[in-house]
């Protein structure tokens, strides 16, 4: 394998990992906000892909605008879905045992899957490209504008999420609620509002990932489970409850899958990835960046 081919593989891996990072970020945000796993996160990625396919003819293709403009629209739409999701899957069950929330997210994920099947059909669909055409040639390597767009958009969204949670007043309040909702309320923060916002952000990020992945990897109603597993693995590898750990884990998964698939096959890469997960659980269950004492952010 030439160094040029290797560079291309690494770029592909980074782009894939960056999209996974958005899924994993949303996954961790919900875990931290409500202490429960959102098992519908994968279906919400799939829904984002189909939302992009549905909206594209209205704004992108018809108006001759680049697909990149779809990203904020899809995120806005999915953010709204996240608000509804919180009020369906979480709030009615928030005083019940956590398992009730797990089951409700699974149920909503299945509803989304069947809905997508009914509306779009079972066959895989191609999502709109972010930016069509070939990009610049660097050192003999032709960079695809689509891949650069995916990488750039995901990097921008990961950074923006980090800045939002770390530097803004709303972000601080979301973190306070994630760490101690009762005490957060005692200093004047409304926990329900912050939890709703956390769901909206998590689902918007899932939707963005759905759009970014839909062109290269297509989208079909049954994709959700796979995305969900990737988020789960990323969080396990990176460190449970940590946003930076989730991003690191997702990038490593993307690189691992792409590199191993290039030398073997995608199926082997998948199988080995689960092997890595098992090894991680056996030898370093706290992940690469272990959660400090109750440091949810």
């Amino acid at each position, binding site marked *: 394998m030439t160094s040029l081919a290797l560079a291309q593989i690494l770029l592909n891996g980074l782009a894939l990992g960056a999209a996974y990072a958005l899924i994993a970020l949303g996954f961790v945000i919900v875990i931290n906000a409500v202490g429960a796993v959102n098992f519908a996160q994968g279906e919400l990625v799939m829904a984002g892909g189909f939302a992009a396919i549905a909206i594209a003819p209205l704004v992108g293709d018809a108006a001759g605008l680049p697909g990149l403009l779809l990203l904020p629209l899809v995120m806005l739409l999915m953010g709204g879905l996240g608000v509804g999701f919180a009020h369906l899957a979480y709030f009615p069950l928030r005083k019940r045992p956590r398992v009730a929330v797990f089951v409700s997210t699974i149920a909503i994920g299945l509803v989304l899957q069947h809905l997508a099947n009914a509306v779009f059909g079972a066959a895989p669909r191609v999502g709109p490209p972010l930016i069509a055409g070939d990009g610049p040639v660097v050192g003999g390597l032709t960079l695809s504008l689509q891949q650069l767009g995916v990488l750039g958009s995901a990097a921008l969204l990961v950074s923006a999420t980090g800045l939002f949670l770390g530097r803004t*007043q709303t972000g*601080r*309040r979301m*973190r*306070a609620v994630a*760490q*101690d909702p*009762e*005490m*957060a*309320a*005692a*200093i*004047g*923060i*409304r*926990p329900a509002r912050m939890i709703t916002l956390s769901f909206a952000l998590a689902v918007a990020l899932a939707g963005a990932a759905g759009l970014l992945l839909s062109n290269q990897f297509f989208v079909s109603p049954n994709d959700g489970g796979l995305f969900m597993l990737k988020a789960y693995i990323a969080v396990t590898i990176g460190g449970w409850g940590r946003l930076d750990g989730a991003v690191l884990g997702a990038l490593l998964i993307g690189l691992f899958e792409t590199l191993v698939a290039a030398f073997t096959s995608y199926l082997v890469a998948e199988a080995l990835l689960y092997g890595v997960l098992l090894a991680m659980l056996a030898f370093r269950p706290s992940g690469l960046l272990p959660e*400090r*004492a*109750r*440091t*949810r*952010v």
Partner: protein
Amino acid sequence: MSAALLELRNVSVLRGGGIAVDKLDLSVSGGEIVALLGLNGAGKSSLLRAIMGLEQSESGAGRFRGRDLGMLATADRARLGIGYCPEGRRLFPGMTVSDTLHAACRAPARERAERIAEITRLFPLLDCILKQDCWRLSGGQQQVVAIARALMSAPEILLLDEPSLGLAPVICQELFPAIRRLADHGAGVLLAEQSLTHALSIADRVAVLHRGRLVLDAPVGGVSHDRLKHLLLSEGEHG
């Protein structure tokens, strides 16, 4: 001293299947420190939690500035001007001190910064720990941050639950005069304490809880130290 900011009438609180606070009447005025004394399990923490809406009052009424607290959620009580510093501090461990203080204030950024500067003048040690994560702080530093967090919204009344618990005497010597200064600036303080010495060093009034019942409510000067000790320690007298 002004008219009562906080008035509790016939308040009862249930906790863990038993009565934690039983038909209690108490008031706190602006500029006044009321020391709420009692042994472990006397109902001090339950009363403070009930005032914040964290514990359900079984009966009775609480009013703050004449407004009925019964229908207000915890966050609304805090926004109305009740500051709360719980037992055990309960800081947000993964957040820095600075972020914690900012999160507790609804004012624009400039006012928040001014407020932090103002509180830092009251508790100078805050200045060198603003960038630190809360989980790294010592017990004394955590206590100061917990009080500072409660002060960020400029509350008219401050509920302090066992601020001396686990603190070195030298820290207490700085902490309690600072609480007195807060009251001197007009805030009402309801101070739940087990340490008689610390509480009486700054309080204007003393209230003693015994198994949830208020057995004394008097000016500090109107009751002797021995009498207070007797009330706190005697078992059968109030049954």
